[in-house]
Structure formats: structure tokens, C-alpha cells
């Protein structure tokens, strides 16, 4: 009976997959040279996850990621990379770039693509630093302009006063990573919600406002405490850097096991919302291009217009609602997986489990960023070459590269799709591995650990399907 049902299902799938795309207003949109429809990649990705889950259950019976196996690189390399000179140079470079963003945003042309500020902030910094962090570790900590200015100010003040500065306030534990989550929400709002959020003046003004808030917070709680927990971009890039094989410890730099940087993540308050914000903002960016959103958004905007908002602000309010809905959907899916895991037994509270498994969402966040922004980084990122020579867009040519242009032939549509699917699958398999390893540490029996992960597997399958659907929407 089962065989007959399976055969019938397989036949239906084959007929659906092979049938020509007929009788639709815009056709079934897909890349014409793919061997199978795009949605079938989603099914294959789900199958890979299920197979990985079974393989983990059979071949990974003991937790292996508690020990990171960190081994230092030769001492002179560590000493050089962590030297005060390198620290000062990197910090100065960060401060210089911050200055260029503000200067070009305020003084340059207001055409976003011809001005250094929007491309640098939204492409090079926000997206480009993610793969750099994943490969080389917490690089942003060295280049962080706010940390560099804060430390330099503290050094100058203590030198001038010839005494130690008063100790900062103790960072409140209950704040955890909430300020960082709020910062990421603010950034996503500027990028995805605010009309004209890519206008150079707006980018520069937002940079100045964020800098002012950061300096006040650093003055109150100390430069390092705020950088570790509150400063949105430090926390954001630090999460991704935990996937890196490289890690700095004191004056040494070393290599650690793949994925072993994430399990030690302390799940302080605000960590789950922060990661949900990271995934949810990319989700909304993709969904905003989907027909389902473009048909709903005007109705939500009409509601806000009926409350007295101008058409522009009503649409912004609608987009903000959409952004929050995407974040809440991601958060809700995760909490659903946790609630399901609780039914497997073990006697853990939902909050305890939510904190215990939150690190497994970081590779998913990476998969979402990598897949969704791959083409933006590849194409728009090339703009940095001519914008570096002409940051204001006024015809200057500082490095002789102002006349270079974007090469759109770097990667074809089909190759891009394969890379995107690869990122999505790799990210979710990494997430499954992390969750499985953590379950083995938490539960006293391996069978109970595996059973608790059924729901988490469901969440991963859901995130995988969602990611590929979002990517397909960008093509419609």
C-alpha cells in the first residue's frame, strides 16, 4: 500500500515537474537553463537536511564541539597581528572611512549610486564584512571607528588628567544584547523602510546620530562593555566571526575546529530577538519583492492613510509593519521548534532551551545573507572601485579608477542560483549539526536528544524552503 502511494506521489511530481508552464499570466518564471524547476531544488534541499539529520543521529553520538581544539599560530604572527601598531592603524582606517562616509554623504552628489556613502555602508560594510568576518574572524573589532575613537579619547583624557579616569557604570545584565537588537532594527528600518533611506544625506545623518548615541553609551558603560554587548555592528559581526576558524586570544591568534566558536555563545537577554532580527530583516528584504507583499502593502498603507498619515509615511508605516511581521515570523518559528523540543522530554524550560539552541541560528543568518545579497555584493560592490576615486560624484579621480565600470558578467544567473542554493543548504546543515551537538550535551540519553531535535529539523526545513522561495521571488 505504501509502495503504491509512493509511486503515485512520484508520478504526480514527475508530471508536474516535466509539464510545460502553461496558462499563467506571467508564466512559471524560472531560469530557462536549469534542468529542473527551481522549487524542486527546495525539495532536494529538504531531503539533504533529513539525510544529514539521520547521518548525525547515527554517526555523531557524542558532543564534539565543547572542546574547540584551539591551536596558536606561530608566535610572531600572533604578536604582529595583535600589536599596538596594527591596532592603531586599523582603528585609524576605520575612523577615516567613517569620516569619508559623513563627508561624501553631506557634501557629495545626492544620486545614491554616484556617491560613496550608500554603497560603502549598505554593500561594502554591511554585506562585505560578513564573509570577511567568517574567514578572518572578528576583524571589525580592530576597524571599529567608534571603539577606536572611544579608546583614543579615554587615553587622551587619562593622560591629560595624569590620573585614571573614573570607572564606568556596570553594564546592566538585563540589557544583554537588546541595544544591539534595537540598533539592527534601526539599520534595517533605514535600509528597507524609510523612503529615501539610500539618499547620501540621510546615510550621513544616520551615521552621525548613531555615532553620538554610541559615544554617550561608551562614556556611560565603558568602551569595551558597550562594544561587546550594545554596539549593534560589533555584536552583529562578532556573531558571524564565531564561524571563523581563526580566533584571537590575548596576544595570540590561533585556529579552532569548524563551528566550535558558536557553542560558547552566552545567550544573554536579547540574543534570540537579535538573531531573529538578523534573519527577519533579510526575509523581509526578499519578501518585499514578492507579489504577495506588493498586493498586501497598499491595503496596509490605506489603513495608515485613514489614520491621517501622508501617502509617503503611510507606505513607510506599512513597510515597518512588514519588517516587524517578518522578524516575528522568524522568532515565532524558532519558539515553535523550541516548544516542540520540550515535548520530547528532559524537563527543560522553554527559555532555557531557547537560549541553549540560539547559536544554531547564526549559520542560518549567514546563509540568508550570503544567498540573498550575493549578487548585490558581486555587482554593486564593484562600484567601490570607482567611488573610491570619486567619492563625492563630482568628477574627481584620486586613484585613477573613476572611469571603471561594473562588470555584470562576473557570474551568470544559473551559476548564481547554484551558489545560492549551496549557501542555503550548507548553512542549514551547519545549524543542524550545532543543534544536534548541543542536544547531546543537554540530554542524558542520545535517543532523547535526537527525538528533541525532530521539531528543530522541522524549523530548519521551514527556513530552507522560505529562503529558496524568497530567492525565487526576486526573479519574478
Amino acid at each position, binding site marked *: 500500500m505504501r509502495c503504491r502511494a509512493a509511486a503515485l506521489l512520484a508520478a504526480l511530481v514527475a508530471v508536474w515537474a516535466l509539464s510545460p508552464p502553461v496558462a*499563467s499570466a506571467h508564466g*512559471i518564471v524560472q531560469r530557462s537553463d536549469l534542468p529542473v524547476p527551481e522549487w524542486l531544488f*527546495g*525539495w532536494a534541499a529538504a531531503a539533504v537536511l533529513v539525510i544529514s539529520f539521520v547521518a548525525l543521529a547515527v554517526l555523531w553520538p557524542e558532543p564534539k564541539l565543547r572542546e574547540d581544539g584551539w591551536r596558536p599560530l606561530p608566535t610572531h604572527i600572533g604578536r604582529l597581528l595583535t600589536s599596538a601598531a596594527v591596532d592603531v592603524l586599523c582603528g585609524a582606517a576605520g575612523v577615516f572611512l567613517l569620516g569619508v562616509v559623513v563627508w561624501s554623504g553631506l557634501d557629495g552628489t545626492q544620486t545614491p549610486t554616484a556617491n560613496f556613502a550608500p554603497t560603502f555602508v549598505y554593500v561594502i560594510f554591511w554585506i562585505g564584512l560578513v564573509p570577511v568576518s567568517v574567514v578572518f574572524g572578528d576583524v571589525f573589532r580592530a576597524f571599529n571607528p567608534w571603539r577606536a575613537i572611544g579608546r583614543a579619547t579615554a587615553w587622551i583624557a587619562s593622560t591629560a588628567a595624569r590620573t585614571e579616569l573614573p570607572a564606568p557604570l556596570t553594564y546592566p545584565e538585563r540589557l544583554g544584547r537588546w541595544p544591539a537588537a534595537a540598533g539592527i532594527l534601526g539599520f534595517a528600518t533605514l535600509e528597507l523602510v524609510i523612503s529615501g533611506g539610500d539618499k547620501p544625506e540621510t546615510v550621513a545623518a544616520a551615521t552621525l546620530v548613531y555615532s553620538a548615541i554610541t559615544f554617550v553609551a561608551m562614556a556611560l558603560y565603558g568602551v569595551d562593555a558597550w562594544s561587546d554587548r550594545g554596539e549593534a555592528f560589533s555584536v552583529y559581526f562578532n556573531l558571524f566571526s564565531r564561524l571563523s576558524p581563526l580566533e584571537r586570544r590575548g596576544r595570540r591568534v590561533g585556529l579552532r575546529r569548524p563551528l566550535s566558536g558558536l557553542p560558547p555563545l552566552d545567550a544573554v537577554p536579547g540574543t534570540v530577538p537579535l538573531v531573529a532580527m538578523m534573519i527577519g530583516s533579510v526575509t523581509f528584504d526578499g519578501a518585499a519583492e514578492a*507579489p504577495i507583499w506588493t498586493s498586501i502593502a497598499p491595503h496596509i498603507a490605506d489603513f495608515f492613510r485613514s489614520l491621517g498619515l501622508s501617502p509617503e509615511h503611510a507606505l513607510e508605516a506599512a513597510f515597518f509593519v512588514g519588517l516587524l511581521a517578518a522578524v516575528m515570523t522568524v522568532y515565532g518559528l524558532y519558539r515553535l521548534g523550541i516548544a516542540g523540543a520540550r515535548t520530547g522530554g528532559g524537563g527543560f524550560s522553554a527559555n532555557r532551551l531557547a537560549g541553549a539552541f540560539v547559536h544554531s541560528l547564526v549559520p542560518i543568518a549567514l546563509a540568508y545573507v550570503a544567498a540573498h545579497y550575493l549578487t548585490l555584493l558581486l555587482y554593486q560592490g564593484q562600484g567601490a572601485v570607482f567611488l573610491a576615486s570619486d567619492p563625492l560624484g563630482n568628477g574627481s579621480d584620486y586613484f585613477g579608477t573613476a572611469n571603471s565600470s561594473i562588470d555584470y558578467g562576473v557570474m551568470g544567473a544559473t551559476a548564481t542560483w547554484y551558489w545560492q542554493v549551496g549557501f542555503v543548504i550548507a548553512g542549514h546543515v551547519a545549524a543542524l549539526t550545532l543543534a544536534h551537538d548541543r542536544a547531546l550535551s543537554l540530554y542524558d540519553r542520545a535517543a532523547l536528544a535526537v527525538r528533541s531535535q525532530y521539531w528543530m529539523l522541522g524549523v530548519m526545513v521551514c527556513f530552507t*524552503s522560505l529562503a529558496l522561495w524568497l530567492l*525565487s521571488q526576486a526573479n519574478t
Partner: protein
Amino acid sequence: MIPLAHAGHWLTSIAYFVPVVGFLLWLGITQLRERRKGRPR
């Protein structure tokens, strides 16, 4: 006729989430069977 005319969009969209539905069905059936067996948790 509009939903039919746009079938290319929503049918394809639904197809992406079939594995999720399939997985949830499997999970639900598994949990029901476990309850019927009365296996201690």
C-alpha cells in the same frame, strides 16, 4: 479567473513549502502513534 491566470505564481510558491507540510504531517503522525502506544516520555 484572476487566481487561475496567476496560477503560475501561487502554484510555484506552494510547491516550495510542500516539504514543510510533508514534514509536519510525518511529525504529527509520529506523535499520535507514540501517544497511542502510551510510551513513557
